[in-house]
């Protein structure tokens, strides 16, 4: 994660430095600030910021979005749901991606598996990942 982010931060820093040189002043974003979530992760309470990003990125795919729509779920609504997941919850979902059964080792298959079968429906009955509700009667 840091390996990916550090060059990006360098780029931001370089851009900010350049703008400073040109304009004299640029309001500074919270460039270095660590989130409570990251700190909580280090405390072992929650983990999975990366997983949530992974889930959200996967939702951008047309094939995944189409598969969701076919099953009565609005992809925008699904996106909002993922965004509102806590790290712990996202981590649990992420762990399920990693545990996806053999045969789903192509990336599209795995993503559709996660969203359609695990996160949203599992109507095909392959998995029993999350407890869902059912009526009493």
């Amino acid at each position, binding site marked *: 994660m840091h390996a990916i982010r550090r060059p990006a931060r360098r780029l931001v820093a370089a851009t900010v430095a350049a703008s*400073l040189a040109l304009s004299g002043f640029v309001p500074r974003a919270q460039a*270095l600030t660590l989130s*409570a979530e990251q700190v909580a992760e280090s*405390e072992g*309470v929650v983990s999975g910021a990366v997983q949530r990003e992974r889930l959200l990125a996967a939702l951008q795919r047309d094939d995944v979005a189409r598969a969701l729509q076919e*099953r009565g779920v609005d992809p925008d609504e699904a996106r909002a*749901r993922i965004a*509102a997941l806590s790290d712990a919850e996202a981590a649990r979902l992420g762990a399920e991606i990693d545990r996806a059964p053999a045969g789903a080792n192509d990336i599209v298959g795995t993503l559709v598996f996660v969203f359609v079968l695990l996160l*949203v429906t599992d109507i095909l009955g392959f998995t029993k990942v999350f407890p869902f509700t059912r009526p*009493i009667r």
Partner: protein
Amino acid sequence: MIRAALLLAALLLGGCAVQTAALRADPPAGLPPVVELTSTPFFPQTDFQCGPAALATALAAAGFAVDPAQLSAEVFVPARAGSLQAEMLAGARRHGAVATRIPGEMAALLREVAAGHPVVVLQNLGLSFVPLWHYAVVVGHDLPRGDLLLRSGRTEREVMPLSTFEHTWGRSGSWAFVVLAPGDWPLTARSSDAVEAAVGFERSARPAVAARVYASAVQRWPDPPSLAIGWGNSLRAAGDTARAAEVLRAAAERHRSAPAWINLADLLLALGRRDEAVQAARAAVALHDAWQPQAQQALEEALQAVR
């Protein structure tokens, strides 16, 4: 033969209700024998939607006006005729409430209700291998009679034997949470529950409200650095930079926390207090812990900043 069948049934049902027996024989000190939160509203479920109905009940009890129809659009998955646990928590947070898990123990559940907090519970009304998931809200108990009182499904006042409840709740992993207004916390929540709840709340809350939630959490659970850092970050995001700096500095010193020093350095830099930022970044570097890369980066930026 009959004995074998009974034994099999007992095994399938997950053994005896040991917590109920212990509770009735020796109730925890200070737990009233009879409790009923009669003012808890009731939203009867429609079709399969016990999730939205239970959530609406808990939100309304905490003082949040809710429309169950809107809630069901948020937490109900049509294709699966149910609601995810994660979404029940997220749904409460989206409406401005703090949703906190509580320990999965009968004693915690009853103490929470006795403290005036209805508890949303997940039950498995079927068997472990034929699950029949159901959300309900616990609103009271009657220890002498051995009953638990719930808002459940289409029943406004369900009376369920404590032992039966213990079985059905245990088969869901004893999953339960409490919905409260920002600043209030469940009686029985542990610090890890509070961290999870506050961090989850921050994600969809206005920074000023998130700051209030973190502040109340720090007061009760002073140990986790994440709560104090979340408090400082939220204050900063809400524009209260002076208070944010105080909080981050206090957290950094108390917990010897590199992230708190780094965040303080970042804030001081933004405020143009370059020398103090360098000092804070040096303090982070000096800890030589897992945050060393970020600490070094903060120091570099502070040293390079224009005076």
